[in-house]
């Protein structure tokens, strides 16, 4: 958010975000606006991102897009959806990688880069900070 009036708008925004999310980013799971998928539960999103399942419930292949390792958006997503810390997620993938059973999702460097990748691929699924969402992607509804 760009602040034209740093003394007014920004302070108000900071206060609001503190009040709404205790300072944490609000992260939402999204797919391309061209995707046929509209509804996905938290558990279904979790299973895709932890590599437990590789398809959407409608049978099409799901391609998860992560965000940069260590980014607040990523940490918030995994904490909210999987209940796992960054170390737990890393530990989970170590088990899979070093037994040749798969590789973690590819990671995009920023919210904007993630949005672009998700928007371009109807099979992609990702997560964005709510304020990074635009019409190229749609927020998944939780049933």
């Amino acid at each position: 958010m760009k602040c034209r009036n740093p003394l007014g708008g920004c302070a108000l925004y900071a206060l609001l975000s503190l009040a709404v999310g205790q300072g944490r980013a609000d992260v939402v799971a999204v797919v391309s606006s061209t995707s046929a998928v509209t509804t996905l539960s938290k558990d279904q999103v979790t299973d895709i991102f932890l590599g437990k399942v590789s398809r959407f419930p409608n049978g099409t292949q799901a391609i998860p897009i992560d965000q940069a390792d260590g980014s607040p958006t990523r940490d918030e997503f995994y904490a909210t959806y999987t209940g796992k810390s960054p170390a737990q997620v890393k530990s989970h993938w170590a088990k899979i990688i070093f037994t040749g059973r798969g590789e973690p999702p590819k990671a995009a460097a920023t919210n904007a880069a993630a949005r672009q990748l998700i928007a371009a691929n109807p099979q992609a699924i990702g997560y964005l900070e709510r304020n990074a969402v635009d019409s190229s992607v749609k927020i998944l509804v939780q049933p």
Partner: protein
Amino acid sequence: MQCRITPSRPWHASHELNAIILIAMLWYPAAAGAAAEDAGASMFSVSAFGTLGVVHSSEDNADFTASSEQPNGAGYSHSWSPDVDSRLGAQATAHFTPQLSAMLQVISEQLYDKTFRPHIEWANITYQPTPEFSVRLGRIVLPTFLISDSRKVGYANPWVRPPVELYSLSPVFDSDGADVDYQMQVGKLVNTLVGTYGNTRFGTPGGGELDAKRLWVIADTVEYGPLTLHIAYQQSSYTFHFLDPLFDAFRQLGPQGTALADKYDLDNKSAQLITAGAMYDPGKWFVTGEWAKRNMHSAIVESTAWYLSGGYRLAKFTPYMTYAKVKADGNTSDPGLNVSELPPFLAGPANGLNAGLNATLGMTAVQNTISVGSRWDFMKNTDLKLQYDHIDLGSGSAGTLVNVQPGFQPGGTVNLFSIAIDFVW
């Protein structure tokens, strides 16, 4: 008897090559790391893992080892042993097409011959026509136990090492052959069925090679949210010539000697291992347990082992507690040859052979361990673990301890203190 085995493979002619591969993999990080962060697909990926750990044992007259593959451990060989838990692994994966990939994993760790020369842990080609179905050809670590294929990746596990009671039950951990993997999803439930078939042969710390043929495993894993259930059955025909001199001598002593040799020798015998395990990990805490039974139809006595472990996550700390137990189901002694049925001049040799047989059967591990420890995720991709183990040896048993010295008192207790740093990248 604990079966002491390790991977010295048919490919051991290329140990120098393995070392070069390991070093090359470790010094190829920047490009691969950058590629992994980029969403653009790269055909190759390289990763590595390792553990630096030391263990101290209160028992000076025997060695504690983490697996039956290790010749040296903590106690007799070293007061503080780096050989028990330390290792370095590097892996390269190539994705030729979305369906076809290959992996190579090289590990440097203490081998049966006391060297740390790198060996090939995994090397296979995977064909995966659909996300649910795959076939692998090459060297595969068997999925027999809940975490047998990831047991060497310290960072992936909550403890310093998997409980030795259960994870030392079978010496056979991998196979050169093929496996087939089929995944099925029913609602939230994901079922993965794996079947493997192959052979393996490897050198052992006590000398000689163990040869396992027609080695197959069928394993089924059910995942339902935070719950994982795993069952498996492993079967092989194995030969281990280490005890041949003893049984050859028995065969010199007529029909009763031959009968005993046939019962206890390790020549083309069948081995079965059956396992069941579960893990529940909702994030904030975990509880896991496993049970396994082995039957090797030889001087390696039928045994059962199990463990139960739980931990709680407090920010970056995960304190845990484990109870593990191994017991003998078969007899750990045998009356042996009936000396009165033999000519008097054979009484001396016959008593000697009976003593040899009973010493072998008496090596069966009987013990239980209470472990308490904590994992501390103090740095990105790195953890530090401290663990205290209190081992209670079964009456007359040296448990899983090896290199037992003359001053050793069986059936006592042993305290271990371990520190380990695990990393992945």
